């Protein structure tokens, strides 16, 4: 289990790692998808995750020397505890590798289900980050990313419905 006491720098590092893992997942997933439409979706989502990582990197670079080490404040300790639990699951668990869900035998429907889980976890994770990250560190930009991840959920769900209907036809 991690022992980090989170400062803004730590939080952005975790967020970057999540996006990096997400991009790697979508690239691996694209290789599995047979259809052009599905492959394109995976490629687009991978690219968007790369952009998200860049946003978090930019926010991290905006931190001053003292801000880098300043412990983030969570008045109720709920978001902090939640964040720590999620980080342990995603960042410090060596079993949670980017390729999870794109193993041998994973088909398009499995991949889309896994992608939905990942995107869902990202949304809730970033909601926790938003609670703890002050406005001056770029909370508004986290909000934008949350909105985009929610858009990913809709895209993935549509694709899942399309392929499921096709499989049943």
């Amino acid at each position: 289990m991690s022992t980090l006491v989170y400062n803004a720098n730590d939080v952005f590092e975790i967020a970057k790692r999540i996006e990096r893992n997400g991009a790697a997942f979508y690239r691996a997933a694209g290789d599995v998808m047979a259809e052009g439409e599905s492959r394109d979706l995976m490629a687009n989502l991978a690219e968007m995750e790369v952009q998200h990582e860049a946003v978090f990197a930019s926010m991290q670079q905006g931190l001053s020397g003292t801000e880098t080490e300043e412990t983030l404040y969570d008045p109720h300790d709920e978001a902090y505890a939640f964040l720590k639990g999620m980080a342990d699951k995603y960042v410090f668990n060596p079993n949670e590798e980017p390729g999870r869900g794109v193993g041998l035998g994973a088909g398009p429907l499995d991949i889309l289900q896994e992608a939905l889980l990942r995107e869902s976890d990202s949304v809730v994770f970033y909601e926790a980050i938003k609670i703890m990250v002050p406005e001056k560190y770029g909370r508004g930009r986290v909000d934008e990313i949350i909105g985009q991840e929610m858009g990913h959920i809709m895209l993935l769900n549509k694709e899942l419905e399309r392929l499921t209907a096709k499989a049943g036809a």
Partner: protein
Amino acid sequence: MSLFFNPREVLEMAVQIERNGKRFYREAANTVKEERLRGELGLLSVMEEGHEAMFQALLQQLSVDALGAEWDDPEGEAAQYLQTFSNGPVFDLERSVPPELVGANANLDGILEWAIGREGDSILFYTGLKGLIPSAGDKAKIDTIINEEMGHVALLNRRLREVAGK
């Protein structure tokens, strides 16, 4: 595909989410033998009841001052996102508690993992719901609930690690 965009339906879903959660935690508390966890599950049930009451209050406010008329979603994005939850695999509102989780031989790991999943689903739904609500004060109420649900996840995760470590 026709989309629902009826504030009443959305808030009624939120009420149902909390009602399902309350019932699950109450039944799980009756199943679990360990006293501390029983107490915690009982407390979670009470907290979900509080959330249910908050959403009921918003529903009543809808009736009284036509709050729904102010809800605005010009691109339909919030409606689409919430629609994902009403009939998609991300979240199944109709999914009842698996009987094996609250029966005599209930598996503690299973109970905790299922609860964590449902709490996460709640946060996802309320994140979308928040985007529709025009009033800053009401948004803040949803934020409080989201924060509390995160606390639930953190507590359940801690217990799950303890159970796994035994």
